[in-house]
C-alpha cells in the first residue's frame, strides 16, 4: 500500500486527527458554506485581517475527509501573518500546482504543505484538497475589493 501512503502522508493524517485552527463557526450563516458538489464536503471559513493589514486569524469548520481537513488545517497555518495580497498569490500558486498547471516543486519551500503535492496523483481528490483554498480565495476577494 505504498501508493496510498503517498497520499496519506503522516503529516496529513496528523492534521486530519488534530486539525489546527478548527473552530465552531456556527455563527456564520449556512449561506456562506463552501461546498464540493461532487462529494458533499462542506466548509466554513473565517479569515480576519488585523489593523496591521495582515491576516491575524484563519478558522475553519465543517465536515470533510482527511485530505480536505488536513489541507484546510495546513492552509490556515500558512496564511496567518500574510497580507491579503501575499495570501492571494500563495493560493493561486497552490491551485495551479493542484490543477497540474505548475510543477509541484513550487511547493518545495512551503514546508509541511508540500505533502499535498502528492494529491496530484489522485485526480479525483484534487477537489478535496482545494476546497479550503477556493473558500479562502473567495473570502479574500470580498474582504478587500
Amino acid at each position, binding site marked *: *500500500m505504498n501508493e*496510498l501512503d503517498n497520499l496519506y502522508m503522516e503529516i496529513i*493524517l496528523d492534521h486530519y486527527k488534530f486539525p489546527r485552527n478548527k473552530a465552531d463557526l456556527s455563527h456564520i450563516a449556512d449561506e456562506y458554506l463552501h461546498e464540493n458538489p461532487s*462529494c*458533499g*464536503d462542506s466548509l466554513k471559513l473565517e479569515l480576519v485581517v488585523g489593523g496591521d493589514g495582515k491576516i491575524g486569524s484563519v478558522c475553519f469548520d465543517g465536515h*470533510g*475527509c482527511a*485530505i480536505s481537513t488536513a489541507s484546510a488545517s495546513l492552509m490556515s497555518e500558512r496564511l496567518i501573518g500574510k497580507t491579503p495580497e501575499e495570501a492571494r498569490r500563495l493560493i493561486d500558486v497552490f491551485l495551479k500546482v493542484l490543477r497540474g498547471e505548475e510543477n509541484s516543486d513550487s511547493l518545495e519551500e512551503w514546508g509541511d504543505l508540500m505533502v499535498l503535492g502528492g494529491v496530484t496523483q489522485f485526480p479525483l*481528490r484534487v477537489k478535496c484538497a482545494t476546497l479550503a483554498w477556493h473558500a479562502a480565495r473567495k473570502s479574500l476577494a470580498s474582504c478587500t475589493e
Partner: protein
Amino acid sequence: MISGVFSVDSKAELGEEIREEFPLLANNSELAYLDNAATSQKPESVLSAMNRYYREENANVHRSLYKLAEISTLALENSRAVVRQYLNAASSQEIIFTKSSTEGLNLCAWSLGELLLSPGDIVLVSALEHHSNFVPWQQAANRADAKLVAIPVNEDATLNIDFLETLEKDGRAEKIRILAVAHISNAFGTIHPIRAISAWCRKHDITMVLDAAQSLPHFPIDVQATGADFLVFSGHKTYGPMGAGVLWGHEKWLEKMPPWQTGGEMISTVRLEKSTWNELPYKFEAGTPNVAAVVGLAAALNWMIATGLSRLETRELKLGEHAYEKLVSVKGLKLYGPVDLNQRRGVFSFNLEGIHSHDVAQYLDKAQIAIRSGHHCAQPAMRHLGIQSTARASLAVYNTIHEVDRLVDAIVGAREYF
C-alpha cells in the same frame, strides 16, 4: 417479485461463472466492482449486439425505403417490443425511449407538469429521492406556482408513510396532482411500499410517477401491477449500455400530454404558425434515436430472461444477505437503512466511526474494491438523516461471496489504517 410473463426456468443455481460473461470483469479478475447502483457492467451479448448493429445494420430509421433502413427500423421496433413485453405494458406505443432515467423524469416533469399543475397545487415527492426525481419536480412546481412537498424520512431510511394521513387530515391531499417516488432508494437500498402508495394515489386521483432506476436491475416489474401511471429506468444500470433509457406511461396520459422536445421524427405537419404531432410513441422521441443503444438494452433484457430471472434474483438475495450479516458485525461500522432485509435490496450505505467515507473508499480502491462515497445524489435524504456522506457498496449478480468478504476485510483494514 417475479412477474408471470416469463417461464421461470428451473435450472440449477447460478454460480460465479456468470462473472465470466462480463468482459470488463473477466479482464480484471482482481476487481471487486461494487458500484452497481451507479452503473452496471455489460455482458458479452450486449456488447456484441451493439457491435453487430453498427457493422451490419446501421442506418437512420423510419423515413427511408431502402433495405438497410428497413432493417434498422425493425431493430428499433423489435427492441421496443422486447421492452413492452418485459414491462408487460399494454402496448408498444406506451414505450418511449429516452437517453436515461433523468431524461424520462424531465420529460414527465415538463410535459405532465404543464398538463396538470396550476397555482396552489402540490407535487409530492419523497425526501429519499435521487436528485433526478427531485429537482425536475421542484422546478416544475416553481414554473406552475405550485408547491413541492416531501414525504419525510425515518431514522432507518424508510419513508414515513404516516405522513400521507397527515396530508389527508390537513386537507393538502386534495391539492396533490402528482406524486413522484423511487421504487428503491439508490442511497440506502430501501424498498418503498409502492403498491400502498399507488392505492393511495388512486383514492386521491393523483398521477403517480415511479422511478424504477434501482429496482428494475434487481427484479422484473409488471407496470400494470404497480398501479403507477409512469415508470422510468436506465439501461446502463440494468446490464445494458449507456444512452438507452425507458419512459413507460399510460396511453391516456401520453395522448393528452404536450410534446416536450420537438424536431425531426416527432411531427406530423410543420407550418410557420403551428405544428401537429406524430402518433405515440414518436411524439416524444424527437431527433435521431440511439438505435444501437436501444438494441443493446433489448439484448440486456433478453440476457436476463435467458439467464433466468429467478436465478438472478436468488443469487442476488444470497449475496445481499451475506453482505448484510457481515457488515453489521463490523465494529465501529454504522450501516444505514432498514434492518428488515425484506425492506431493502442491493445497496449498503455505511460509515466507519471517525473516518470519512472518502478515505474509506480510497483505501478500498487500493485493494481493488470499487465503491462509492458521497451524498449519492440524494442531498435531501442525507440532510434529513443528518449525515454528510456515506460509503456505499452496491451489488449485482456477478459479484461473489469472496468479493463481499474482501470488502469487509478491507473495511477492517481501513479502520486500522486511519
